[in-house]
């Protein structure tokens, strides 16, 4: 369920400012930091950010 929510949130939120990044561009550790960075910059709520992080880590 979190994976599915994360996939949708990734598509909805990340594309608002820039092209959607390929999950394979970064490792799990890097995504952990980048998602926090984007959470602050794009005002993404914490639960949605966790969903996106889970999706990226499961897809890279």
């Amino acid at each position, binding site marked *: 369920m979190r994976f599915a929510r994360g996939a949708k949130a990734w598509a*909805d939120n990340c594309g608002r400012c*820039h092209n959607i*990044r*390929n999950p394979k561009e970064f490792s799990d550790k890097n995504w952990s*930091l980048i998602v926090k960075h984007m959470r602050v910059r794009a005002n993404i709520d914490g639960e949605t950010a966790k969903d996106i992080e889970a999706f990226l880590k499961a897809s890279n």
Partner: protein
Amino acid sequence: MRIGHVVGLSLASLWLLGSSAAGAATTSISDLQKRVDALEQQVKQAAKTEQELEALKAELKAAEDKAAAAQATAEKVAAITPPSDDDSLIKFHLDGAVVADFVASDMKGSHNSFVAGKFLPIFLASYSDWLLFEGHMEFTSNSDGSTNTSLEYAQLDFLVNDWLTVVAGKFLSPIGQFQQALHPPWINKLPDRPAGFVEDGGDEPLNDVGIMARGGFPVGSMKGTYAVYVGNGPRMGDMGPVLEGFANDNNDDKAFGGRVSLFVLPHLEIGLSGMHAKIKGMEAMAGAVSQADYELIGGDFAYTRGNWDVRGEYIHSHLGAINSALDPSDPAPTAIPATTWNNWYVQAAYRLAGVSDNPVIANFEPAIRYSQLHVDGFNGFKGNEESRWSAGLDYWFAPSVVAKIAYENRHFPHAATDNVFHAQVAFGF
């Protein structure tokens, strides 16, 4: 089972003897012998089964002993092995972008030129799940061969809960959308900023030093965002207020500002911004300076759906009459009348993946923008007035690797029109 078979065999024997003694046997000796043989076979089979069961028990015990030994070994190894990077409390990551430009202009006295490349590293560090540091530097080569270094932001983000992050330090201004979200070169659809949304003499605040609260929250089925801050605020410059973060304040009045936005549709964001500050005049060689109110309001929208990216932004700001120098070497302050700035742009971009499956054509993205800065009031602040058409074509090698070309028609009220060809390559990492 074994006892049962022994008892059975005994009863059969007794029955056999009893029958013989009674002399009333109707069954022949050979039949009885067969029965006895069958019973003996059953007893032997039971004994064999019991032996097999004992052997299996022994094997199971050996396997259990091996598993226990392996678990003990694993626990010892885990105890002396350091955690992997992904498990560590403190994590690091280097982010950022690099950009290179070529600009050709028909402005008198200008030369076609490869413009200095920029290196824009972003350093990220987190502690557990509740603290993030973001530091963004900008390294630029100057025309005299030297290197310019600036600090775009250096902020500590305390992730208080799902809906609140408290920021302290130097941060990008949350006013509007271009500065805080779109200005990185691998995100900006065109190689230049909109007219007026510039780093020097622009109308959109760049950054500030202070504290900020920001986050996102649900509003029914919609989503809302907010960012409010208090900071040192702007200072006076030769082109009007300098909307950058200064390391200390030159008066006791802080700047307040922020932005709220609402996603009225999943792909349509509407934002409102505001800011208030008191600006102290720039000191001259002699003479008293005054202080004036500075107010800013703004609105923005972004529609991003499928292959479309359509945006617009408007900022209106006002500075009251003020006595201020325009340069620290001025002998006396200048009496500057109240001045207003009106600054806006609207742009649209479309990725051709929407009309072609060809892998080359699909990576092209034409973009067009109109932007304008208009100033009413003090003539000395009108130098950046401009209206500009920009039309460009991007090619995306990867989601964050882009080559752009653009034509810009720049109309200045107080100078000759300039036609510019601008090419750029950018990589965000």
